[in-house]
């Protein structure tokens, strides 16, 4: 046992602390339990002090951060349950299973709360698919998500995908799940009732992923291939049975508390439930159904075998539980009981193998790290845009932007996902946000994930605000009022001062935007140590957001609907080109400052669009984001299969007019007799609005100050926009 704690990822100080808690040296099982529970992945020990800034309160918040998932009131005795989670490191090592088990884990978080999962989203970051390994990762991550979600019968309705060099060695795979529940049926992971039996249900326990949580909390390098825990394999069929069995079980009142076994398996589920309830638990490992022979207590306590749950049951109701699980062909074994001494006591062969205070496992040490503005930051932000030579042919530039990997249609990905199962998907992938109806009501919910990591790299505080603002804007574009956030903070190694600075400023940015826009954070996840030999990833605080639609018949999509409709541009173009897709694609530069954000203006734009949709005044709405006005216009034209003729008057450079990514803007289309009314409303909301053109013909035509700068057949643009990713993936 020579300094074995170091190998398990604990520091010498942490080891000392364990000794002082126990009043003795821990044995190997206990040490293992502390090492996983005190890992960043489980304990958030580097991020917790920062997460305190996030606004988590609001009228609709039924459950904020701290439980398996957040819960929001949507009226009519219904609530929405939501959570996002990362599975970055497992996906880097074994993309198919890593992504699949990531989806499996997040689904469990939702139905553990008692909710029926109704939708999945996936937020993905890869390197560019020009090398074989990256292609392999993309192919398999997407297949892993598809196979798991499809088999579960939960539609994957949205997400986002970015391709940037910074994610080459460390892809990001974030999965979000959303469920719906009747408010009075919410389950929680709070163990209660001394003597109540504790049961493990679902799959058997094997040696899968032992130490996965501490693994997820280290940087990836050559050695991680070696240290890698035995890979977890997902079994979506098993999870589908587990889902149905759990929901059936919740119809009875036999369940006191329940928690899924994700990272750190039996250890985390038992100690977290016990700690929340201020009780202890005694577990007899001889009773745990095992898949492999001769497993040690260490292995059983740390196994990350998937598709398992720990349940505290009302005393005497065990048989009822067994019956339900048996119907679904699943195990349900009583392995212990709730105790009054606050200890997690682990028995095997009648002997005590571990005995530690539950609370001490969940109260990991917290670290406030030193922060430092990165030395490269200033240089990075310096960009004299006037030195950039305008392109000779804007038609070419537009084609390059439209077919850039980040802007091109993500159809190749989302057609592998069953996004329609359950027949609730009213707006399918490909639009600004997905919309699901809630059967039996008039309501709908809209869902998105958003984050431009490049902006966050250039200026974490502003970039993170934009992530929130853009998510909210996307929801408003379909007619939904944003109601809650679940965030997934993907960053590098927080022990590096620069990364800590990024993390802190990003959280402050999210806080600011959420406060100003009045959207609480109800759940989230932190994934640190996302670095590879090529360095840290861009700071990537992914924002998952839900919006509420009170009347599902009042929604809007981005596609142009009818010839002769007027096109109106909302918001102000400030010619901001720093960090833009245009700059990257046409000049290979990732520099400057990201667009600036005025949250007051943002709010007014969002409210205006919501009001326009509610009043039925507009036919299409699409926010302006990556690729600027030109990209938004082309996307509306392609999805509506209609050309457009635009004429702009501006003092900006032509290319900046087209491709600037200034915030708080949108392109809408309106029947010509409604133009006056719409412009008047825009004025009331103090949102700049200009009638800029007409839906017409089969080309995209743009004039600037009377000069035609763009004239391209829609068909041509459609081919490059729709075909790019498929082409990249299929070429050799």
């Amino acid at each position, binding site marked *: 046992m020579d300094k074995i704690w170091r190998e398990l990822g604990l520091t010498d100080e942490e080891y000392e602390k364990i000794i002082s808690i126990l009043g003795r040296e821990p044995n190997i099982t206990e040490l293992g339990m502390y090492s996983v529970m005190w890992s960043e992945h489980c304990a958030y020990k580097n991020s917790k002090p920062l997460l305190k800034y996030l606004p988590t309160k609001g009228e609709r918040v039924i459950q904020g951060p701290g439980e398996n998932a957040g819960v929001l009131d949507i009226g009519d005795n219904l609530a929405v349950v939501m959570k996002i989670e990362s599975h970055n490191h497992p996906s880097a090592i074994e993309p198919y299973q890593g992504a699949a088990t990531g989806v499996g884990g997040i689904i469990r978080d939702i139905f553990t709360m008692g909710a029926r999962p109704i939708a999945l989203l996936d937020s993905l970051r890869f390197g560019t698919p020009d090398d074989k390994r990256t292609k392999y990762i993309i192919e398999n991550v997407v297949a892993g998500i598809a196979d798991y979600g499809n088999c579960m*019968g939960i539609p994957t309705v949205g997400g986002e995908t970015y391709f940037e060099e910074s994610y080459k060695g460390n892809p990001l795979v974030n999965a979000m799940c959303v469920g719906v529940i009747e408010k009075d049926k919410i389950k929680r992971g709070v163990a209660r009732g001394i003597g109540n039996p504790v049961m493990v249900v679902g799959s058997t326990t094997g040696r899968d992923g032992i130490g996965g949580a501490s693994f997820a909390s280290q940087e990836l390098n050559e050695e991680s291939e070696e240290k890698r825990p035995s890979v977890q394999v997902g079994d979506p069929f098993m999870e589908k049975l587990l889902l149905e069995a759990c929901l059936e079980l919740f119809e009875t009142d036999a369940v006191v508390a329940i928690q899924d076994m994700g990272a750190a398996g039996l250890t985390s589920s038992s100690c977290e439930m016990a700690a929340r309830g201020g009780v202890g638990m005694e577990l007899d490992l001889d009773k745990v159904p095992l898949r492999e022979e001769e497993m040690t207590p260490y292995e059983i306590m740390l196994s990350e075998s998937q598709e398992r749950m720990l349940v505290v049951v009302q005393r005497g109701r065990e048989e009822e539980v067994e019956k339900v699980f048996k119907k679904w062909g699943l195990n349900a074994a009583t392995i212990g009981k709730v105790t009054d001494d606050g200890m997690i006591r682990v028995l095997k062969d009648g002997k005590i193998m571990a005995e530690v205070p539950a609370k001490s496992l969940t109260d990991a040490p917290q670290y406030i790290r030193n922060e430092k503005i990165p030395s490269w930051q200033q240089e990075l932000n310096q960009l004299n845009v006037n030195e950039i030579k305008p392109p000779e042919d804007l038609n070419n530039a537009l084609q390059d932007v439209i077919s850039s990997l980040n802007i091109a249609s993500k159809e190749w990905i989302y057609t592998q996902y*069953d996004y329609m199962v359950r*027949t609730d998907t009213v707006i399918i992938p490909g639009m600004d946000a997905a919309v699901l109806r809630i059967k039996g009501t008039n309501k709908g919910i809209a869902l998105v994930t958003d984050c431009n990591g490049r902006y966050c790299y250039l200026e974490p505080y502003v970039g993170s605000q934009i992530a929130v603002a853009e998510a909210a804007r996307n929801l408003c574009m379909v007619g939904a009022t944003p109601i809650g956030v679940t965030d997934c903070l993907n960053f590098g190694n927080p022990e590096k001062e620069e990364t800590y600075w990024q993390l802190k400023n990003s959280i402050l940015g999210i806080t600011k935007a959420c406060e100003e826009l009045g959207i609480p954070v109800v759940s989230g996840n932190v994934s640190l140590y996302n670095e590879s030999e090529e360095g840290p990833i861009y700071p990537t605080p992914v924002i998952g957001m839900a919006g509420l639609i009170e009347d599902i018949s009042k929604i809007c999509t981005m596609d142009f609907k009818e010839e002769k409709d007027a096109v109106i541009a909302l918001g102000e173009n400030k010619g901001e080109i720093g960090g833009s897709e245009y700059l990257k694609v046409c000049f290979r530069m990732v520099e400057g400052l990201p667009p600036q954000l005025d949250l007051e203006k943002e709010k007014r734009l969002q409210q205006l669009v919501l009001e326009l949709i509610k009043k039925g005044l507009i036919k299409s709405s699409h926010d302006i984001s990556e690729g600027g006005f030109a990209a938004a216009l082309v996307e509306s034209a392609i999805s509506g299969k209609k050309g457009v003729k635009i004429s702009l008057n501006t003092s900006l450079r032509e290319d900046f007019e087209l491709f600037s990514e200034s915030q708080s803007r949108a392109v809408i289309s309106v029947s010509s007799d409604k133009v006056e009314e719409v412009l008047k409303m825009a004025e009331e909301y103090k949102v700049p609005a200009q009638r800029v053109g007409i839906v017409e013909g089969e080309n995209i035509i743009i004039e600037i100050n009377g000069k035609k700068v763009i004239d391209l057949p829609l068909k041509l643009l459609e081919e490059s926009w729709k075909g790019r990713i498929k082409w990249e993936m299929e070429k050799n």
Partner: protein
Amino acid sequence: MKFAVIVFPGSNCDVDCYYAVKDGLVEEVEYVWHQEKNLSKYDVIMLPGGFSYGDYLRAGAIARFSPVMEAVREEAEKGKFIIGICNGFQILTEAGLLPGALRKNEGLKFICKTVSIIVENDKTPFTTRLKKGQEILLPIAHGEGNYYVDDKTLKELKENNQIVFRYKENINGSVERIAGVINKKGNVLGMMPHPERAYAPLLGNTDGLYILGSIVDNFVKGGV
């Protein structure tokens, strides 16, 4: 009339079928667990899509041994209307109630989208609301929808007019773009596309009601 939606472990379009009947057709419908051995009280039997037993061996291969499949066979012999959609189609072929087999899609990927389907046979009790040659839009969502029959069986299918639907375009590699077939007797239909996902204006598509509605029309007239 009363519809049964069979629920196998791993079914997931059972919900889709249920609501399409309840809200789209406004008819009575019940879920029936795969252990059930008697289906005589139902008028129409639906085998839904999904991943019965995870589709782990071959799609439908394990489900076809479920106790309920004996009852399905009995009712089929009696002439009752039986429709297998997606995984339900795969189960019916594995059970030998329909000819052919479904293989992995030619492109090896799961495909979810709405595609054009051409009606080949408008004389079945499932297609009387349609016209031969008519093009309708239906969602597909499958990884193993690549229909195979050998030449001899194909010839028979044609002679007996058993090919009911074809894809307009080659989506998944199916022999002659076959999307749905019926048994010789004309009361058991299997199809990969999902009519039960196209039943409500809010979903942007009601073409599925041509098929589901035909079943209702023909039942009223007294079945096969």
